[in-house]
């Protein structure tokens, strides 16, 4: 029993690590721009599809595919930022969100046009057997995922608290009007935050398809759902909360799946979110990132 619990926890934490990255990306954009970017997941899917297209047509090494995924996501993110968020900066948040939703459709249509099959194989990070550690099995790629996600989180933390750019990002999150008055070039910072968030999403997306060994056009929807859910579980707008929310979501999903079966897995997560929101738990209300 305990062995199962720990095994599930380990599995849950490694998927949770990917969720944490997705949630971080969402939260960076939401915290800084104060808008939800509905094309965040689809931009990741675009990057992943670029890598898949490269793999299908030319074949490529794991590292190159990772770079293409991240690069594609950043490119798509820049496209979204220029089209949906930059024009509405002083104006309607709804207009920006609706525009990003429209681009979501655009990305999906484009992806299915270029690669029409519903499912494509994707090179796996690790083909071999899982590692046995006492009574536990650890998949090497799950460890890579956990390690990469932790490294990415450390990078984000270092950027936010040890660099001039990070200071500007935090200023924009905490007090946007005063940030502009302090001489911060706000549009410039917005564009770079978008790039950082898209890169994080790209890393998460790559890790997920490389551990599952396959990709579908639903990746965009999937990343959006998981990212939003993890972000909300951790407390909207909080960066440490995003990481914890992601890990918690992984944890909850792994255990729900084990004890209740895969059908219940998603249901439990959404149910928990509903209960927390309905009970108006204090940490769920929007606050500035700390």
């Amino acid at each position, binding site marked *: 029993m305990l062995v199962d619990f720990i095994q599930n926890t380990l599995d849950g934490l490694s998927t949770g690590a990917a969720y944490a990255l997705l949630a971080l990306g969402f939260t960076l954009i939401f915290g800084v721009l104060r808008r939800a970017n509905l094309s965040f997941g689809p931009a990741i899917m675009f990057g992943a599809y670029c890598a898949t297209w490269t793999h299908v047509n030319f074949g490529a090494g794991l590292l190159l595919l990772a770079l293409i995924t991240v690069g594609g996501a950043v490119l798509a993110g820049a496209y979204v930022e220029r089209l949906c968020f930059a024009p509405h900066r002083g104006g309607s948040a709804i207009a920006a969100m609706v525009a990003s939703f429209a681009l979501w459709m655009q990305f999906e249509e484009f992806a299915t046009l270029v690669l029409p099959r519903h499912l494509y194989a994707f090179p796996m990070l690790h083909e071999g057997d899982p590692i046995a550690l006492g009574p536990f099995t650890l998949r090497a790629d799950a460890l890579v995922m956990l390690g990469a996600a932790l490294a990415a989180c450390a990078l984000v933390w270092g950027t936010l608290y040890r660099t*001039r750019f990070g200071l500007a990002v*935090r*200023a924009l999150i905490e007090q946007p009007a*005063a940030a*502009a008055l302090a*001489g*911060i070039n*706000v549009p410039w910072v917005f564009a770079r935050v978008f790039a950082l968030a898209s890169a994080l999403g790209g890393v998460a997306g790559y890790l997920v398809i490389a551990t599952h060994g396959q990709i579908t056009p639903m990746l965009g929807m999937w990343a959006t759902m998981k990212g939003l859910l993890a972000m909300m579980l951790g407390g909207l707008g909080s960066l440490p909360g995003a990481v914890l929310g992601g890990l918690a979501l992984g944890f909850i999903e792994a255990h729900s799946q084990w004890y209740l079966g895969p059908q219940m897995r998603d249901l439990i997560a959404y149910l928990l979110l509903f209960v927390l929101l309905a009970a108006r738990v204090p940490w769920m209300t929007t606050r*500035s*990132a700390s």
Partner: protein
Amino acid sequence: MSFLSVRDVVTAYGKIEALRGVSLEVAEGAITCLLGPNGAGKTTLMLTLAGILRPRRGSIRFAGEDIAGRAPHAIVARGVALVPENRLVFPAMTVAENLQAGAYQRRDKNTVARDIERMFARFPRLKERAAQQAGTLSGGEQQMLAVARALMSRPKLLLMDEPSLGLAPLVVEEIFRIVTELHRDGVTIFLVEQNAHMALKVAQHFYLMEQGKVTFSGDPGSLAEDEVIRRAYLGSAKS
């Protein structure tokens, strides 16, 4: 040629014109004060000067350059810094980080560090709280932090929007003492105030603004103080 020259500036929120053709001048090295009742458009003018709002019409020239409609960071780069109404410190950052943020455009790390030390010397209470989160400071301390943060960009013109707002009388005196000190050190100050009495004690020149226009310009003493105060708080009666 005056340091800051504002001519016929019109700023609107949608259809509502908050500034209906404002003209004034700020002389270099002086403390100039803008008084007027609530809703007169004083904060709108400050935000327009700082680049947060774009004027529909009119010109704003600072040290010979046109700055109307430029982005806020470009205006800071030209040497104009605003201490905003309600201070707007960065609450989760420490006092020291707030000062760093004020020096954002400066790349010279060593001189920035020395300027931070000078701010701490000028504002000893900020030094005591250097590692404290700015949101936990008292109103007066936050006001000092907001002023210090603006000074970190080494502005040639300091704009101050209602620095005494919500502060106890003793703290207000301290704030105005700092304003006088800055003036003595050569900083040009353009000050919006509700506290007409204190403002007139320090200003060399003042303007009255009512309903989006400048209605009076003079030096303290050119209008009887009680008349000034009445118009600053209540506006002049339309006859």
